[in-house]
């Protein structure tokens, strides 16, 4: 492994439950990695294990070749930004940011300069003498970040630092944090359950499920080439249709079903699947037409037919709920189709994710 932060075969237990079931992850120096997953998937446990607050029962964690698996949190040279910010209520903003420097016995003049520099970087200049209780949510978040950055940590760990902010502030802070991380060249591990947040901020996304890593890759990779049904669903391909497929050379034959036409598509990067399968696709990645119009081609696309039961306008595109017998799909379209209209939906092969059905 050529990583800076190396995690190998790490397992963590809480009582009888195994929360992490053998994690292998390598983070390069200066890289921004997002741990993405639903609540309870073990992403926060992994972050706390990296920080030293959980001891793995098995495995090894090293930073730049130095084994830190058994080291206490204060010896690891990392800084953790908590979801609750965990600012010390009895200290002012200056004291909070300067605490790490005080611990490192930095001389007071240099420390003050560094604290001012952090405040300048984060737009907290006027707030040095305030206590955390006198700050807004966004300001507290920046103080927490400043406190972590002041000590120039080897690795910055972020535990859902944006989840307590208003939606509007969150969008700007996302970009501020990733810009700051790039400017300072810090290695960062960021935990989030927000897919878009991970996509926008991270160089690489690690999707976790049930204490294991489901997929690792760049935002484009995990979005466009999900390797499992779970990842496809988590990355927003929520529409599911059951199909029959047959792999022939580099093509996949999709048999005619009660709600779909027979189709032939390129296999591409997909794993070979034959027999019962499920197809997933995103609501905006399709083309929809009235059933009466000239038929859509079954070449390089899966064509489904159903009935519109509900129409709404969330902005941009019209959103339709389409029923295919028992199956309910959500389909976005430029044009509006009336409720009750019979429609045909074509899912292009590039937007179609096919996995075996068990």
């Amino acid at each position, binding site marked *: 492994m050529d990583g800076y932060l190396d995690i190998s075969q790490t397992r963590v237990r809480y009582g009888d439950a195994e929360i992490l079931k053998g994690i292998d992850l390598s983070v390069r120096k200066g890289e921004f990695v997002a741990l993405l997953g639903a609540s309870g998937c073990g992403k926060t446990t992994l972050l706390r294990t990296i920080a030293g607050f959980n001891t793995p029962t098995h495995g090894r964690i090293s930073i730049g070749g130095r084994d830190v698996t058994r080291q*206490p949190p*204060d010896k690891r040279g990392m*800084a953790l930004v*908590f979801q609750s910010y965990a600012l010390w209520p009895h200290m002012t903003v200056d004291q909070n940011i300067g*605490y790490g420097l005080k611990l*490192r016995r930095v001389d007071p003049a240099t420390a003050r300069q560094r604290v001012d520099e952090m405040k300048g970087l984060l737009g907290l200049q006027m707030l040095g003498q305030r206590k955390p209780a006198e700050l807004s949510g966004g300001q507290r978040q920046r103080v927490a970040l400043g406190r972590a950055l002041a000590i120039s940590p080897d690795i910055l760990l972020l535990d859902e630092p944006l989840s307590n902010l208003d939606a509007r502030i969150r969008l700007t802070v996302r970009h501020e944090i990733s810009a700051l991380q790039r400017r300072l060249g810090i290695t960062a591990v960021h935990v989030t359950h927000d897919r878009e947040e991970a996509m926008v901020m991270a160089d690489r996304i690690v999707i976790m499920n049930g204490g294991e890593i489901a997929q690792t890759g760049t935002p484009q990779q995990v979005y466009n080439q999900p390797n499992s049904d779970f990842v496809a669903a988590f990355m927003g391909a929520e529409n599911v249709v059951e199909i029959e497929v047959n792999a022939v050379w580099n093509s996949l034959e999709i048999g005619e079903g009660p709600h779909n036409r027979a189709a032939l598509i390129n296999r591409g990067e997909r794993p070979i699947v034959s027999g019962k399968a499920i197809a997933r696709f995103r609501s905006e990645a399709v083309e929809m037409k009235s059933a009466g119009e000239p038929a859509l081609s079954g070449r390089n696309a899966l064509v489904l037919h159903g009935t519109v039961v509900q129409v709404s306008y969330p902005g941009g595109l019209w959103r339709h709920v389409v029923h295919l017998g028992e199956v309910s799909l959500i389909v976005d379209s430029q044009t509006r189709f009336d409720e009750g209209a019979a429609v045909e939906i074509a899912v292009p092969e590039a937007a179609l994710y096919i996995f075996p059905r068990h």
Partner: protein
Amino acid sequence: MNATMIDLKWIPRALGLGLLAFAIFGPLTNLVLWAVAEKWYFPHALPLQYGFSYWVSVFSPRGNATTSLTMSVIIACLTVVFSIGLAIPAGYALARLKLPFRGAILLVLLIPQAFPNLPVYVNIARLFYQIGLNGTVVGVVLVHVTHGLVYAVWIATAAFSAIDRELEEAARSMGASALRTFRDVTLPIAAPGLLASAVFVFLESLDEFTGTYFVGAPDISTLPLLLYTAGSGGNYQIASITALILLLPSIGFMLVIERFLRADVLSKVGR
């Protein structure tokens, strides 16, 4: 017309409040009157003569009040130091570590309070007599500590439990050792709760009578003992003055507690 009807409804409430006020302030007024009465006997409703001559004699070098007051304060301070000194580590351990029998430990501290005081103190007195602690300040302080430790440990446990663990973890993450974290983060945040428990222990010690009587008397005399002697001797002026002296710190400290013991700490007491 309508207005008078509403006014009439206030009468029972006003009467009730008046009775309540009398029940609370009546004895206190009596106490204050006795403290400044020179001459007062049946059947007169009010003292016949007012003055401060008893105050002078209480605080005169020959009077026992000054020595008793000093002794009371010394014992109370030592009790606070001992109790809080024990309660800080004990409370932290009970609040933070996964101790087995945590509830049982908290309950054990209640035991001295659960049994009737007299047999407990008689036995302590007998035990202390054997090892020569009877009639010493240390003996009395130990008795007061068994009493005060309940408040101290229970409130300290609550004060430490009320602190978000992440505040400590944040300090560890910034590079502080466990001890440094306790000193810089845990202790300052728990301080108001600890101060409140110290005040409780101080007041309990100042008021304590039974244990002091059995273990301390006659060598150690505290204000409650003086009050008892004066009261049983029919000297109501001395008794009232002593009672007033005892009352002052109680009122003062109650105001302190009201300020410092926050709801989030109180809600964790005994958890």
